[in-house]
């Protein structure tokens, strides 16, 4: 009977785990350490990291044109891999006669844009740009592209795009299990950054969630602590 109950619990747990993988955006693992990462390369490092900091890297890739379409692909900052961009086929369009498109990722270390209202910039701002060859002519965006940006630490809000005058929030996805990356779908070229929550007041639900995540374990410690205390008092009374 006990074995049957154990087997049933095992089966139920496995079934629920498989279902929850499918219906939720929960991370695809149950525990473990974040995947190993090199130290973050800052444009403007905190004072404590100034001596060990390396400046962030750039990235560039050339996508040829075939049958009138710019072939897509990936480009990342190398070797730090703090930004990875994925561009689909025909997502970039150059003027007639374009033979290739060069996509660049550059950290904006000089005069980065100010942080958005109610937020703070986590890590570096990066400029995503593209030019058509020959002649370095401007390109247009035919379809949004994907970007993954690393952040050093902090309470992430989203990835945002700076259009030269203001920040625009993008549909963003946090990497699972505390890995310090955020993905977003970007509709145009420009400057992007990971934006974190500032000290501004949040909604009631956000506040409750944060307290549960921060103090839920503490609450359980108190509850089980009281149980242990009551048990010990009872035991001593029985002895007496």
């Amino acid at each position: 009977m006990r074995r049957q109950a154990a087997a049933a619990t095992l089966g139920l747990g496995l079934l629920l785990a498989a279902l929850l993988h499918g219906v939720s955006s929960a991370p695809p693992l149950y525990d473990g350490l974040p995947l190993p990462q090199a130290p973050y390369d800052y444009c403007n490092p905190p004072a404590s990291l100034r001596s060990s900091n390396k400046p962030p890297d750039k990235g560039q890739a050339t996508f040829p044109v075939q049958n009138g379409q710019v072939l897509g692909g990936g480009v990342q900052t190398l070797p730090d891999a703090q930004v990875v961009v994925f561009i689909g086929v025909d997502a970039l369009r150059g003027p007639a006669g374009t033979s290739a498109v060069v996509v660049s990722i550059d950290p904006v270390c000089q005069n980065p844009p100010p942080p958005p209202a109610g937020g703070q910039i986590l890590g570096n701002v990066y400029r995503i740009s593209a030019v058509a060859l020959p002649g370095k002519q401007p390109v247009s965006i035919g379809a949004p592209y994907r970007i993954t940006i690393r952040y050093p630490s902090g309470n992430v809000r989203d990835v945002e795009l700076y259009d030269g005058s203001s920040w625009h929030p993008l549909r963003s996805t946090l990497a699972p299990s505390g890995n310090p990356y955020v993905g977003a779908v970007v509709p145009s070229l420009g400057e992007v950054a990971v934006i974190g929550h500032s000290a501004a007041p949040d909604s009631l639900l956000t506040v409750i969630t944060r307290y549960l995540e921060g103090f839920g374990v503490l609450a359980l410690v108190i509850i089980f602590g009281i149980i242990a205390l009551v048990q010990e008092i009872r035991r001593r009374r029985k002895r007496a």
Partner: protein
Amino acid sequence: MIASRARAAAPPRAARITVLVLGAALARASVAPAGEGLAAAVFAALLIGILAIEGVGARPGDRPWPLKRSILSGLGVAAVLAAPVLWSASAGPAWPPIPVHGAFLPWAAAVALVASLEEATIRGTLQQAWRAEAGPVPAILCGALVFAAIHLPRYGLSVMPLDLAVGLALGGLRELTGRVLPCAIAHTAADWAAWLSA
């Protein structure tokens, strides 16, 4: 009747062990801003301390599964737990992709150590203490709750249902096989699957 007498005679340690394990998770969360490696080391050291103080619970009268069968059962559960991860990885890179800087072996060793210590503490000590005081099913439930709770500060509320489900499975595996080893194998292998999904 005999079982309930044995439960009544058992010294009350389950709640105390629960407090200790949850306290270790709190300590890990509080140290985390100083670095994930340091936090994991503190957590591991505290779990070793709990194991040293409380020991791994034995089940008098129960016959554990043979070692080979236990290992195979752990690998089987790991395969089922990791299947969705591997399925996603085979369909394409994870979104957002996670660049990895470092070698697999040191990371895998650290993950195996932490996962095995968690299993030894939760399934080996805590679950067995609750089993002695409340019976097997409440013990599995309590172990699953603690397993989910210790991951709460790090992964947030959204992951709690999944961790509860996996906790139920690992608790059932412990009860079924009478060993912690298959739980440690399943837990570690499921964690390793993260590398493949990156």
